[in-house]
Structure formats: C-alpha cells, structure tokens
C-alpha cells in the first residue's frame, strides 16, 4: 500500500552557521494521511526539519518537495497555504486581539470573501469547541484553551499538512491530553497529514511512524511498537519509556507471562485499538 506523497525531503542539509550543520543528508518521505512523530533530544534539529517543509527556512543542499512540487522562492507562499503550523507557546502565535480576529487574520491573507470567512470561523470554532471563546482576549484563556484556539485558527485555513511543533510541551497534564484528543480526531477525520515534533510519549505512541533524529541525521524510522521495543534507542533519544510499558517489561522480566507476549501486547493494545481501524479505512481509500 503506497500512499501518495505529501512531503518529501531528499538529501537535505542545513546549517545556521557553516561550521555547525544542523541537518545532514536527511531523506524522509511522508505519505498523505500519515501521522509522523519527529523525536530526538533537544537541539537535534527537529524544529529545523519542519521549518524547512514550509519554506520558513531554505535548505543549503538537497530538495524539499510538497505534494510533488519542489519548494522554490516562488511557490513558497502557495505551499504555505497548504501547510499549517501550531507552535509551542500559544501566546506568541496569537496575532488578533480576540480569538475571532486571530482566526480571521490567516483567512484574510488567503483573500477569502467575508461570507466564507464567517462560515469557516463558525465551522472550525464549533469543531474545536471554542465558539464561546470567540469574542475573548487570549489573556483570559487558559493555556489549553489558547492552544485549541491556535489549532482552530490553523485548521480554518484548511491546510492539508498540519505540523505540531512541540505544541503540547508547555501545557498542563489535562490540556496536553485534551490536545492529544484533538490531534487523534484530526487523524481519524482522515484529511490531514500530521507531523508532530514532540517529547511527549503519548503523542509518539499515537503516531503511525516515529522518526528519530540524532545529531542532524535520521537514526530511526519505525512504528511506535518497534521504536519503544528498543531501550537503547529510547535512551539515545532522551526518552523515558512510559510507566505502563516499563511495568510490563519488568513483569515479563520476572517471568510473569511470556516475555515477548506481554511486552508486544502492551504496546499493541495501548495503541491499535482505534489505529487499526483507521489503517483499514486509509487502505480502502488509497
């Protein structure tokens, strides 16, 4: 089952300063409708990688293409309209004085007619359950609410690829889980290709693929259960295995239940409850 390519990096290299390359010879292909988590210790180039995708940065070597079209100076604005981004700090991505105006800001840039803007604002604020916040100033909202509004503002532009750049890392536990539900919903919705740069284990587990970066190169590209089955890899990426998984591993080490059985099942039941369904759906479509 080979999906249409949403984004592709081939042989990409990037450096802010010549002597210190941030990315080197990166090859990555993301299929339409896929959810790819990009992980790695801080400073490994994760955020740089996604910024290359929508031409916020330009690679020094190699090519970046989005929906088969190579990124150039000329088509950058057009490509950006197909890629939405949600950043870490919701405060610094709010441009409007109210949630409604902030949503409108992006839409104005798309040159939409007023009626269409109204329709989209109504529809996406309803979908993310933020209709009540529309007239509010972002300062009056909690971190989680603000981040939901940022997602709404991004989705209202109807992008095909959505990038979450550590979007959950400043959120409290509850908001983090809430946002994760939102991303899961987007995945189930099926229209979005999702890239999430993250330190969050739950976010990684929910993805289709985990791409790990180390010192500017991709050191692993695996499914979450393969990824989490490799303690050495986890350690090198600065990831602590989640408690549940660790417990299952310890239990099997103590000889409770067949070693492979419990471990494998844990990862699977933890993740594939809804995932396999979505996989099937995707299969029939493509």
């Amino acid at each position: 089952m080979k999906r249409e390519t949403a984004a592709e990096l081939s042989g990409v290299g990037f450096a802010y300063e010549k002597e210190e390359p941030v990315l080197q010879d990166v090859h990555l292909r993301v299929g339409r409708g896929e959810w790819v988590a990009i992980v790695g210790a801080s400073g490994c180039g994760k955020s740089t990688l996604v910024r290359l995708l929508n031409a916020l940065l330009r690679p020094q070597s190699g090519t970046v293409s989005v929906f088969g079209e190579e990124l150039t100076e000329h088509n950058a604005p057009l490509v950006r309209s197909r890629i939405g981004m949600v950043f870490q700090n919701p405060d610094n991505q709010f441009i409007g004085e109210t949630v409604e105006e902030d949503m409108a800001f992006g839409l104005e840039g798309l040159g939409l007619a007023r009626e269409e803007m109204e329709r989209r604002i109504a529809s996406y604020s309803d979908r993310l359950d933020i209709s009540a916040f529309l007239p509010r100033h972002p300062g009056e909202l909690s971190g989680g609410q603000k981040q939901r509004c940022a997602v709404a503002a991004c989705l209202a532009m109807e992008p095909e690829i959505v990038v979450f750049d550590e979007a959950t890392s400043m959120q409290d536990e509850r908001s983090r889980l809430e946002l994760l539900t939102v991303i899961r919903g987007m995945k189930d919705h099926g229209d979005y290709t999702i890239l999430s740069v993250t330190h969050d284990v739950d976010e990684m587990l929910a993805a289709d693929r985990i791409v790990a970066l180390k010192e500017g190169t991709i050191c692993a590209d695996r499914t979450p259960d393969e990824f989490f089955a490799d303690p050495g890899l986890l350690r090198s990426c600065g990831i602590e295995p989640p408690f549940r998984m660790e417990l299952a591993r310890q239990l099997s080490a103590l000889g409770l239940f067949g070693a492979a059985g419990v471990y494998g099942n844990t990862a699977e039941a933890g993740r594939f409850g809804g995932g396999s369904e979505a996989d099937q759906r995707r299969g029939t479509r493509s």
Partner: protein
Amino acid sequence: MRGWIKRRAAGKRNSGKRLDGRNPVGGPPESVPCPQIAAGRSETVIELTDADYIYQAGSPFAAAALYGVNIRIRRGTLVGIAGGTGSGKSTLLQLLNGLLLPAGGSVRVLDHMLVPGLQKPKLNALRRRVGLSFQFPEQHLFEDTVEKDLMFGPLNFGMTREQAQAQALEALHAMKLDDSLLKRHPLTLSGGQMRKAAIASVLAAGPEVLMLDEPTATLDSAARRELVLLLARLCREEGRTILVVTHRIEELLEVADEWIVMHEGRAVFQGDADELGDRADELDQWGVAVPEPLKCWAEWTARLPQLAALPLPRTAQEMARRIAEAVHQSANRSALEAEAGNPGGLEASVCATN
C-alpha cells in the same frame, strides 16, 4: 529499594500528626526559637494557617487568590505541589518567601512570621534561607557570565566575593554542571543546562528551603528524570526541604514524600502518595490528571485484592516485584494465568487506558 522503604516508614510515622492540619506539632509557631534547636525530621518548617491571598491588581501571577490554606511542611521532605492552571500553586510559593504577603491568616516559614498588615518587613533574612526558582530559566539569568549570575544572590545576601565564588562553584557542582560553564554567557547554554544553571543560581545562596515552579516543563523526559533525581539528592543528602510545583504528578511520584493538591485557590489535599491513590477519583475534578502509576496500581489491586494492603510502589520495578510476589502467593495462580491468555483479561488491564 531499601531507601524507598525507609522513606515511607518516616512518612508513616508522622502522617497521623500531619493530617489534622490545624493542630500544630511544636506548639504555637511564635515559640519556635531557632530551627537548629528544634532540629529533627519532624520539625515543621513551613506552616500556613487559614492563609488567604486576595488578588491584587498589578500581580500578573495572582490569577487565583488563595483561600483559607492550611499546610504544614516538615524539614527535609520533598513535597510535590500539583494543580491545574490558575489553581494558585505559583501564588502559594510566592507567599512563602514574602514576595506576596498574606491578606488573612498567617504564614510561618522557619522562624519568620508573615501576617497581614505587616509593615513592609525586611525580608532578605528570610529569602536567603528560602530560595525560589521561577518557571523560565531566562528570568534568572541576566548577567553576562554564568558565574556572575550564580554570585548575584550570595552577594546580595552579604557574602564576600570569595565566599560567593565558592558558593557559586558548589551550586554548579550540586546541579552536576561542568566548571567550564562558569565563564560562558548564560544564553549560550542549551535548554537543559540553562534550567540547571537557573536552579544553581538559587541554590548558591545556600537556602534551607528550595522552591521550584515547574522546573521540568519543556524538558525531554530523560532530562526531566535526571533533574528530579538531582532534586531528590539535594533533599536526601543535604537535608534541604524542597517544594516542587508540577503538573505532572507522575514524574515526582517516585521521590516525593508528600503531596499537596491545589484547586481554585484552596489546598484540597495534603498527604502521601498512598493517600493520593485513595482519592484518585477526585483528582480529575481538581483539574489534575491521574498519574499512570496510580492507575496501574489500581487496576492490579482490583485483580489481586491482597495488593491493597501494601503501600503504593513508586517505581515500575518495585511495582512489578510486588505484583509478582502476590501472583506467586496467590492460590489461584493457574486460574489467573488462564485469564491472562485472553485479551480481555490481565494483560489488557496492563495497558487498558493508554
């Protein structure tokens, strides 16, 4: 493991006294003359009695006021403070070193008494002994070298340059940072180093009580764990009292002696991890996510009722060991294993809520 059991025993010894919040252990607070005399693990170093903080215009943190907070914290304990956004947990920390003054009730920290209507007291004597690290490391780093930043506190508290330098070095080592960082510009450090340097800048003044506001936010999970273990070491080996505001109970569960949960300006819970486990249902309505270890333990306890008598294991390893023991003891072990074979049984419970 042994260390953990010892800690627990210490916790249990005091829990009876601790829980009836209003009954002071060591007599009325004014009568505590000097912390050195009344030393010992059970000495109360922080005591809030019906403390209120009324929202004051101009304070950007006081999104939530505090109402009738009663808290007592013993010397040398590591206390986790959990709560949702705006629950008042950051406000609470600022009340403890006089950055904010209570509007009602009283706040006693070490031998300092803060009560409403106090003429703006000289607070440096208190602040030297009670350090507060804010959420963003950049807020602590404003000099042009790390060393100067580390010496800022000690110098303000009246130490000589040599003393301050020695203190800075010691704090740097306590946070497991390399000497070579001293001459670096703080803003050239990596995220994790910056966070540790910011904590070291507070530690350099040699506080007896160290308070940290969400020290692990935005760090990756391995760096978070490393930091938590460092804090635990400061508490266990150097006897400091450590208060950590967090929204992730899970990351501190292994090391915290005690928990305080804040909700809408009230301290709705104070107790150890076991007591927290008993009230897991309420956590959600307090705006706090139930930590995974509590969920797992509850699921296993439901399967193996004999586990209920045991204290909550703090690590996955310990929990696995307890479970294994219980399973081996269990007479109906074979039955259990049969159940484990089917996906709806034991195995599913290991991971049901992921």
